């Protein structure tokens, strides 16, 4: 198990993966479940097991809409969306901080962009 990865993801997300009781409510709630190779409950379980590299290599990290339905519904307060977000952030960091700056967003806006993605972007950068 790669503890470094696991610890970093847990620290970045602030999510308590060990609280998961494997009920699957996150995946039951997820509106974009069909687009994901790894589903919300698998993210939580795989991070707990230290299998972070497989998640980082999967396009599933970009399929999460960050709608927070799983966070809202989880009966144990695990916050799966934050775990997925942290895995995504780990990939971005390894690529060398090449993420969007808030000022760059308006130029890249596209009419076909789903509204949910806009909300997601605001939620991410509104800190």
């Amino acid at each position, binding site marked *: 198990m790669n503890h470094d990865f696991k610890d970093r993801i847990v620290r970045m997300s602030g999510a308590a993966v060990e609280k998961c009781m494997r009920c699957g409510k996150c995946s*039951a*709630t997820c509106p974009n479940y069909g687009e994901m190779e790894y589903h919300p409950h698998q993210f939580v379980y795989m991070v707990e097991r230290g299998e972070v590299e497989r998640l980082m290599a999967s396009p599933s990290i970009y399929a999460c809409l960050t709608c927070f339905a799983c966070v809202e*519904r989880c009966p144990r307060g695990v916050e799966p969306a934050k775990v997925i977000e942290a895995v995504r952030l780990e990939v971005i960091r390894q690529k060398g901080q090449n993420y969007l700056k808030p000022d760059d967003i308006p130029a890249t806006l596209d009419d076909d962009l789903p509204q949910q993605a806009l909300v997601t972007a605001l939620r991410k950068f509104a800190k």
Partner: protein
Amino acid sequence: MQKIGVFVCHCGTNIAATVDVKAVAEALGREPSVAVSTDYPYMCSESGQNLIKDAIREHALDGVVICSCSPRMHENTFRKAAAQAGLNPYMVEIANIREQCSWIHKDKEEATEKAIILGRAAIAKVLLNAPLTAGESPVTKRALVIGGGIAGIQTALDIAEAGFPVDIVEKEPTIGGKMAQLDKTFPTLDCAACILTPKMVDCAQNENIRILSFSEVEAVSGFVGNFTVKIRRKARYVDETKCTGCGLCTEKCPVKKVPNEFNLGMDQRRAVYIPFAQAVPKVARIDPDWCNMLKNGKCGLCSKICTVGAIDYKQQDTILEEQYGAIVAATGYEPIKVDRYDEYAYTQSKDVITSLEFERLTNAAGPTSGTLLRPSDGRHPHTIVFIQCVGSRCTPEKGKTYCSKICCMYTAKHAMLTREKYPDTDVYVFYIDVRTPGKNFDEFYRRAAEEYGVHYIKGAVGKVAPRADGTLDVQGSDLLMNEQLHIRADLVVLAAAIEPSKTARPLATMLTASMDTNDFFTEAHPKLRPVESPTAGIFLSGACQGPKDIPETVSQASACAAKVIGLLAKDKLTGNPCVAHSDEWMCNGCSNCASVCPYGAITYEDRDFRMPDRTTKTRRVAIVNPAVCQGCGACTVACPSGAMDLYGFSNSQIMAEVDAICK
């Protein structure tokens, strides 16, 4: 000069592995006034006790210090041993060198030093001990059972069987509780009413049992063996002594649209009603919120047709005051409200129901006369989804942190009975874990899956959405298939968590009985004293102590009765002599002690005092009732003038201990 004996226990290796017991015995033996100091592998053993007894006799000891485990374990053992050797049992002090020393330290040298210091403190205390004699109080040989569900019924029947009178106080108009609302009972599938109603009738017929239905406990005072309880007998506007339960009034009453709580509001009753056919007592009650006569004086039909003149619109609440030796809490449980879990659409669709509502929908006395029909359109449901753990096993913000324990079994029962009666129905159960420990329980659940073809799906439901065609879209996860699925269901049944009755907390306050954060009553010891409250004379029966199914409730109810009988069989109770007492010359009557006393043991009295100048002065002073005082010591620290002191734990003794430790 007093002569003290010191006895150091090894407790096998529990103490001796971390504390040099020989060194402790030697060091304490050098203390002034210690006449004998020795060590032994097990002081609590018979030979260990004999060692102490022989030393008391041989050296004519005035006091004994035992360096051993917590006084909660063996203080009584050693006190009895001392008494057998002719020493007052309260001349024994325990130095806890196990829980407070050997178990929590690793370094042997440090632990030995600490054990010696603890021993010295106990010696300093025992030198100031005085012989104490426990007082006695009489026992009122009558029990009060609060709650008339299956727990209260069983406890009352068992106590009555032993020959003691019992009162059952039930807040509803009939006894029977939740079990009366159930259809079948797992794992044998006998009908709940068929096994419960004979017990209800037994209660009514037993000459030792008095049922105080539609009544609530209003105030409790007193102490073990001598409780005084005020019971509010709520007005039911029907004279219980006259009503024959013929039911004529309930047929003629013109107010027909009252939601029927017995069927959880799924059908209607009249304003005057008898909860259900087998109600005990079978006496009608008029609901003042709906009765036209009580609301605006226009009707009076029931009083005209009642052949025995039992209707009494002027009836008032009355207060009954009664003495009891023991009180049993049997307040039971309620299912939680599931409205807050909006993902299940309970408030949006009539076809999303709770398991208790499902019980009523399958019961012959229920709103559908036992035919399973959808509440929305009265049609047979062909696909039913059961959702487990609704509000159980959550974070405190999301619901209950505990497992409600009964849901797995009753869901298996519902699923099985549905498949048996309506084989054309598809039944799905979403589960997190199936928890069925219990005699013949797992076999029961397996039968549902294997013989009755119930589809068990390991996963949760994320969303229930009512569709335009009247069905429900159930979106859930199947973790074993690793897929998200959608089931088009006709009926969704929620296994709601159970919680203690809302009446339990105010009752616990009246009883000074402790509760946990979930409002379940706390037992005196989770393993060894499971049916007693830590408050003496208060006993616990049924689900008010924790979630329980019927078999477990009945076992606990009988165990509780055995404890009550054990208490009521005594003529006198020996009290605890370590109680507070007030020096009336120092008391200034400030009332600080009375306001901190959690047991109401302190009262005030005007006393005449002969002053040095031969005048008489009347002063208000505190008086402690030693039978009520539990010796907690709160008053001794609250007293500003130092008048309050505790026998066995006097201020001077505690200061002597502190001095010995700090020396």
